[in-house]
């Protein structure tokens, strides 16, 4: 039985071979990458989940960031240098985010970092960026109640997405709300805000439920919704990722259509609609600052560039747009400061404006962007019909409906004010 | 039948009306049995008579459906396996069962330990090397004392397990087919070993090898269909027609 004698050897070989096939090319590419010698490029970090649960959302954000960098490089780079992106995988694991952030700062000596999606990952890297006096650009809509000197937030603050959408629902769709969310901080905090807001504005929460991230068994929730809203009502949905698919297919399966049960989602964008299937979502609503269908020249250019780079079937969405914006704002700030030095860039970033796909945005001294709020309704092709749009809304990181933070604001341009100060009435 | 035991010898084991039933099948059926201290008893009986099941009850592996089992006056039925073992009952299984990843030496050491609590095992100090060496010599495994016991041949495992029971130094030794797979000479050696052990231990031996039974037997108990068929000296039992009928076979019984 000589063949079994050699099996170890064979397996070893097979494995090596497999590895070779999968990786050989990458090794090659890696080594041939920077055509320009060290020091002639400016390194920036890109830190998102490329594996694990969050990869679903975060990989496209990376695509957008890479696109922006590529465009900037093609246009001559920044300060005459090319930008070199160092990509790290946060692997949907918060400690890993912290580890990789440290690595980018300490080992790679990057000029700045673009990254994170979940608030948990942002909270995990926040101490790293603060203790190392470094800088993170964060592209996703979030729950607010934070204003770090070391982070620029280019997604919506609650008053730029959640609050206007609740108001719109109250005005147009009904007063009884059922809140569904994934079981983590953004939905929980968002719902805290919504409850405070509804109380102030005369709405009512009839039920609330949370699904563990990634869970797809939504039968009990559907039952609860039917029980709590027998005659229809508003579903406010902050479910993330996978769970949405189950939720909407079953919502339809159970006969709860958007006519009687309109839903407002704050984590469903074009990509998710594709994954869920437009036929399940048609007629439901989402609130964002940007939709792929926004009709601006800048957006047209953005979408075209993106599709040319990644394929005609790809779609763009709000976090991708926010990610695209932040790379440009950083570039403008660096150019204004004339250096990549963190503090100078931070100062220079204040007041930067950018003709973004969603419209003209401005970076505030509270590290958030002034943005447009839009309500979209899902069309049969899976894109959104923008049915309501506001003028640019200034960001309020500290929520004005929640008692603890009412009356607080943030201003990093003034050392006397800082991250959380009481506004004089 | 034999004369009743003298009043001076205490009965170490008393079993009354022992019944074990598995889904209605009675492996033991109203068995009555008793054993004097210091006795060497051989139990024979057809395959499936319930001999092993009997030992299973004695060691706590099987809980009886009915009946009483008293060992040194204590009821064994409520006790757990390890408690019974610590009361002084040691067993060799029918198919040898040794710790495969421990060497014969370690197997014996494990059985020698007198205090088997968690902390006494952890903190206790003992040096048993000499005792173990002697025992290894007795069971003929001196030259294989360091290899994992799982690699021993069948016969060697039999020997090792006998050694483990001896090391345990129980009051009552239960030996289930301990010479199966041994050569005639080794069987004889085992017989001698058992007889020397019998000087200060109570022993129950289960066997099918009639030569061996004749060598060691004083009193023989025959089980059949879970109950006592007969009891007596080797010659008495051997010539009992019922025993010949169900067990020995009519033509040429070995021994």
């Amino acid at each position, binding site marked *: 039985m000589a063949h079994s004698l050699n099996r170890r050897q064979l397996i070893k070989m097979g494995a090596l071979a497999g590895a070779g096939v999968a990786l050989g090319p990458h090794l090659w590419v890696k080594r041939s990458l920077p055509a320009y010698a060290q020091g002639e490029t400016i390194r920036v970090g890109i830190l998102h989940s490329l594996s694990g649960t969050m990869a679903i959302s975060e990989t496209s954000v990376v695509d957008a960031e890479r696109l922006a960098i590529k465009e900037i490089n093609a246009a001559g780079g920044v300060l005459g240098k090319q930008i070199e992106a160092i990509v*790290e*995988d946060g692997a949907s694991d918060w*400690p890993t985010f912290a580890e990789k952030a440290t690595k980018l700062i300490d080992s790679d000596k990057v000029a700045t970092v673009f990254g994170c999606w979940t608030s948990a990952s942002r*909270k995990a890297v926040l101490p790293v960026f603060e203790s190392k006096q470094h800088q993170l650009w964060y592209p996703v809509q979030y729950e607010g109640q934070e204003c770090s000197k070391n982070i620029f937030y280019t997604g919506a603050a609650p008053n730029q997405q959640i609050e206007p959408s609740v108001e719109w629902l109250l005005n147009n769709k009904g007063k009884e709300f059922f809140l569904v969310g994934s079981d983590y*901080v953004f939905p929980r905090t968002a719902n805290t805000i919504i409850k405070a807001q509804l109380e102030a504005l005369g709405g009512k929460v009839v039920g609330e439920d949370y699904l563990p991230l990634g869970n797809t068994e939504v039968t009990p929730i559907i039952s609860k919704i039917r029980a709590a809203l027998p005659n229809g009502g508003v579903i406010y949905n902050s479910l993330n990722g996978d769970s949405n698919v189950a939720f909407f297919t079953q919502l339809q399966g159970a006969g709860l259509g958007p006519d009687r049960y309109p839903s407002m989602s704050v984590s469903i964008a074009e990509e998710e609609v594709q994954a869920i299937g437009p036929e399940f979502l048609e007629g439901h609503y989402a609130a964002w600052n940007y939709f792929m269908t926004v009709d601006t020249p800048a957006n047209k250019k953005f979408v075209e560039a993106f599709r040319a780079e990644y394929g005609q079937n790809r779609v763009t969405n709000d976090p991708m747009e926010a990610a695209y914006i932040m790379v440009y704002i950083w570039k403008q700030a660096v150019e204004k400061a004339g250096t990549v030095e963190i503090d100078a860039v931070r100062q220079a970033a204040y007041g930067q404006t950018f003709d973004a796909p969603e419209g003209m945005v401005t970076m505030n001294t509270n590290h958030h962007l002034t943005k447009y709020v839009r309500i979209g309704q899902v069309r049969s092709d899976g894109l959104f019909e923008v049915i309501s749009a506001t003028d640019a809304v200034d960001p309020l990181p500290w929520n004005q409906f929640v008692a603890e933070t009412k009356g607080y604001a943030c201003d990093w341009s003034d050392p006397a004010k800082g991250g959380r100060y009481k506004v004089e009435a | 039948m034999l004369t009743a035991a003298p009043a001076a010898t205490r009965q170490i084991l008393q079993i009354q009306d022992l019944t074990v039933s598995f889904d209605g099948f009675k492996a033991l059926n109203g068995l009555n049995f008793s054993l004097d201290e210091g006795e060497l008893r051989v139990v024979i009986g057809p395959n499936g008579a319930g001999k092993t099941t009997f030992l299973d009850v004695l060691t706590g592996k099987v809980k009886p459906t009915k009946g009483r089992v008293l060992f040194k006056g204590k009821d064994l039925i409520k006790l757990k396996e390890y408690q019974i073992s610590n009361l002084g009952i040691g067993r060799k299984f029918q198919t040898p069962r040794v710790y495969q990843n421990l060497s014969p030496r370690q197997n014996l050491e494990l059985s020698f330990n007198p205090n088997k609590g968690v902390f006494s095992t952890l903190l206790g100090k003992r040096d048993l090397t000499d005792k173990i060496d002697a025992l290894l010599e007795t069971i003929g495994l001196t030259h294989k004392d360091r290899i994992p016991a799982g690699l021993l041949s069948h016969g060697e495992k039999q020997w090792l397990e006998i050694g483990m029971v001896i090391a345990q130094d129980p009051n009552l030794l239960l030996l289930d087919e301990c010479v199966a797979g041994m050569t005639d000479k080794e069987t004889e050696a085992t017989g001698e070993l058992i007889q020397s052990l019998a000087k200060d231990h109570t022993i129950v031996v289960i066997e099918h090898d009639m030569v061996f039974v004749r060598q060691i037997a004083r009193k023989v108990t025959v089980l059949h269909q879970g109950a006592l068929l007969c009891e007596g000296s080797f010659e008495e039992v051997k010539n009992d027609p019922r025993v010949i009928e169900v067990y020995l076979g009519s033509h040429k019984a070995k021994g």
Partner: protein
Amino acid sequence: MATPAQRRDPNSRHKLLLEGGILVGVVLALIFLAPAMVSSFRLNLLGRFLALSIVALGIDLIWGYTGMLSLGHGVFFALGGYALGMHLNLQLPDGRIPEFFSLYGVTELPWFWRPFYSFPLTAIAIVLIPTLVAAALGYLVVRNRIRGVYFSILTQATTIIFFNFFNGQQRLINGTNGLTDFRTLFGINVNSSEMRFAVYVTTIVFVALAYLLCRWLTSGLFGRILVAIRDDEPRVRFSGYDPTGFKVLVFAASAGLAGIAGALFTLQTGIISPNAMSIPFSIEMVIWVAVGGRASLVGAVIGAVLVNFAKSLLSENFPEIWLFFQGGLFLLVVLVLPDGLVGWVRTQGKQLWVTFQLWRRRLADTSPA
């Protein structure tokens, strides 16, 4: 495969001395040489991975030696981590409560946080809470003779319970985000380099202590009974031992080690979150031990450090496809090195040594000619 159970031959003293010498040598090298040789970032990683090797030791104790495969050690790890995390979160000026509470409108510190103001109580909690939880769980499980996959699945169920609980209780323990944003310990900035080095050294000391503890438990008669339980637990009962006590003890001990590891890891990573209680992390722990070599304590430490460094380096160099390697690595180890690295060194190393000796002898024979 077989345990390297210690043989009491005349030169066992000699061997013990040698082992002690090597241990001291390694500890000293880690403390004095490593910082000089690697960047502070890598040193910090090494510190973390050494912390993880403490859990690995615990897993080896229960899985490698006793045969209890726990797929839930992340819970004990996280309990230790949370205990220290709470203490670190409470390093605040008078009466203020950790910032995250305000997110959920909590204004009063939940009662169970109070003891963690005190470092001694925290230190006790780090070890004691996991140990007690494990002892209670272990007792219930082991007493009912739940073994093998049933035990593994049960630990997994426990993990899910704890995970969902910690993940869902934002108002008590900050949910998914976990505890982070640590600033000071004993009034010293936890991010200062002195503090970092002190923690690094502490970790090494704890690894050494954990090693000694496991070494003590696994050598001698006690260790042999563990192996016997792994091989044939029912038989052990007939030998007069009650396996329950033994199993509960090692399970609790390994949970205690996990708690310590969790605390040291949290301190060095700056965050503890329910992710540490996720199933994959617990499985990874087992993989470290398998890679290093089951039933080898050195193997557990080496496995934990190597696998984690491999993971770090692979994901840095191939952020997009590193999982291919990680998965391939596990496959390779299981198929090609069934006894782990240490097992491989033991067998192949011996062979190489023999070949080398032969070769030397042949050389010596031929050279005069």
